């Protein structure tokens, strides 16, 4: 395997694990690089970063919050909204490590070829957002935050292992045996929120159909394969909001038909 086939995969793993290590060090040794956890962090002891969905749920409960968390959520929303798109899911989220492992094992064991396929809608995540906000408003408790495998796994790594890890194993098994990319690609409302936030973001994957040999490796590896509808047909950027900018399609492509690019808003025709 050539390095160019795993370049972004390795970069992503380094990013994810470095962030988890910095979070861990923030609690264990008091490092002031990245403190807190994935719902709200303090960068370099100064800059707040907050999960916009967690804040939205807190608003739904009717609580009044401090200014730090508002600034933090604004920074995150602007970053992914302008630059990153849905990159949180593939470059930051710890559950991505688990679900990618399940997806990899699924490919290795040829489960898709053997197992009876279960179909569920990829839009469940958007319904989950609405339901989470309704439940938050009714119960007065940020509803997704008490079941979120993302923060549960994150806290298990930072503050010590607990039985919440069972939920992570359950998601692994769900993704492995029930639905391909079941959690991240169908259910997770946080992924839905970042999809919506990143609708107009600049950082995009671009397809050059002239180079494409229709090997379909990219579609096979993509966790949101429906976003690659232009493969072999049109030379355009992947503008579907569910693309996580993970770069796996670019990795596996041996024909230079996919690359990262900045979305061209100003001059659409000259592309």
């Amino acid at each position, binding site marked *: 395997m050539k390095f160019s086939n795993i370049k972004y995969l390795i970069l992503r793993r380094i990013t994810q694990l470095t962030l988890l290590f910095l979070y861990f060090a*923030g*609690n264990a*040794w*008091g490092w002031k690089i990245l*403190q*807190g*956890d994935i*719902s*709200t*962090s*303090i960068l370099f002891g100064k800059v*707040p970063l*907050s*999960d916009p969905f*967690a*804040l939205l749920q*807190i608003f739904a*409960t*009717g*609580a*009044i*919050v*401090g200014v*730090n*968390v508002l600034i*933090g959520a604004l920074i995150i929303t602007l970053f992914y909204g302008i630059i990153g798109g849905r990159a949180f899911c593939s470059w930051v989220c710890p559950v991505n490590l688990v679900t990618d492992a399940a997806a990899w094992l699924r490919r290795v064991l040829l489960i898709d070829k053997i197992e009876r396929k279960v179909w569920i809608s990829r839009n469940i995540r958007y*319904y*989950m957002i*609405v*339901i*989470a906000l*309704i*439940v*938050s408003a*009714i*119960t*007065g*408790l*940020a*509803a997704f*935050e*008490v*079941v979120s495998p993302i*923060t*549960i796994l994150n*806290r*298990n790594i*930072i*503050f*010590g292992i*607990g*039985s*919440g890890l*069972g*939920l992570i194993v359950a998601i692994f098994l769900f993704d492995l045996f029930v639905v391909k990319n079941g959690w991240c690609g169908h259910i997770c409302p946080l992924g839905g929120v970042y999809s919506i936030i990143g609708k107009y973001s600049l950082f995009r994957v671009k397809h050059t159909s002239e180079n494409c040999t229709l090997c379909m490796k990219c579609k096979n590896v993509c966790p949101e394969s429906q976003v690659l509808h232009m493969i072999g047909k049109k030379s355009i950027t992947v503008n579907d909001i569910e693309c996580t900018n993970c770069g796996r399609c670019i990795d596996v492509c041996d024909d230079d038909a996919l690359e990262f690019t900045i979305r061209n808003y100003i001059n659409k025709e000259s592309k």
Partner: protein
Amino acid sequence: MGEKKEKITPRRRFFTDIAHHIGLGAMGVLLWGGYATKAKSSPLTLRPPAALDEDDFLKTCIKCGLCAEACVNRPQNIDKNGNQKKGTIKMAKAEDSVTIGTPFFTPRDVPCFMCEDIPCVPVCPTGALDITKVTNPKTNELDFRLMDMGVAVVDVHSCIAFWGLQCDACYRACPLLDEAIKLVYNRNSRTGKHAFLEPVINPDVCTGCGLCEKACVTEKPAIFVLPRDVAQGKVGDHYVKGWDKADQQRAKKRKEEDITTHDERSKKKPLDYLNSNSLGL
């Protein structure tokens, strides 16, 4: 028999689709809401200092753990060899009977040491730990005496001081020495020549730090901290200290309809009452 085949009209499809979505949505809200309601009820939880009332705290806390990190990493949290000790504030795991991800403490493991600079409170990004609750309005400085995590309670049957043994472990462990816990002297009539030194808590001063619970010598602590609304009763407006001017002011605020002795039973004639059973039913 030639049963007529039901035709799926666009209208039928439209309404079925709506029912489908509403039905699934309602199912989600009910299941999820049921779990969230259950997850919320943890009445015996002790929260970090300056926490909002439990309901508001659960709404506001974003579960970031910055308070717990400030607690464990405070410079004075080291043992004699310079190694870091466990922090007071823990983040609830799935197996704790506390809403998952929220900060709490268990005094018998690690009590709150009532740091003068209260490092856990100012770091809270959402205000779930409300700094104004521990800020002295006169000096505008942090004041650990204003902390209120709970209140200590003594089980007088398992407290050996109430047996007549001399023990003042809790009294001496208290950071507000001789204020939050006082030793009340009573004559020991069993021996006829000794005194009981009974620890009695002043709930107006006690912050619920739990240093007494940690210090208690009995196998399972005879003094322990409970959330204030669990540990304390409320007199209500029916009873007033006639000898206390301030308490009489409290009684003046009560409304007339709140103190009436008339109830459903008053509608009946006294004779009916006498002829019915003793409960007046």
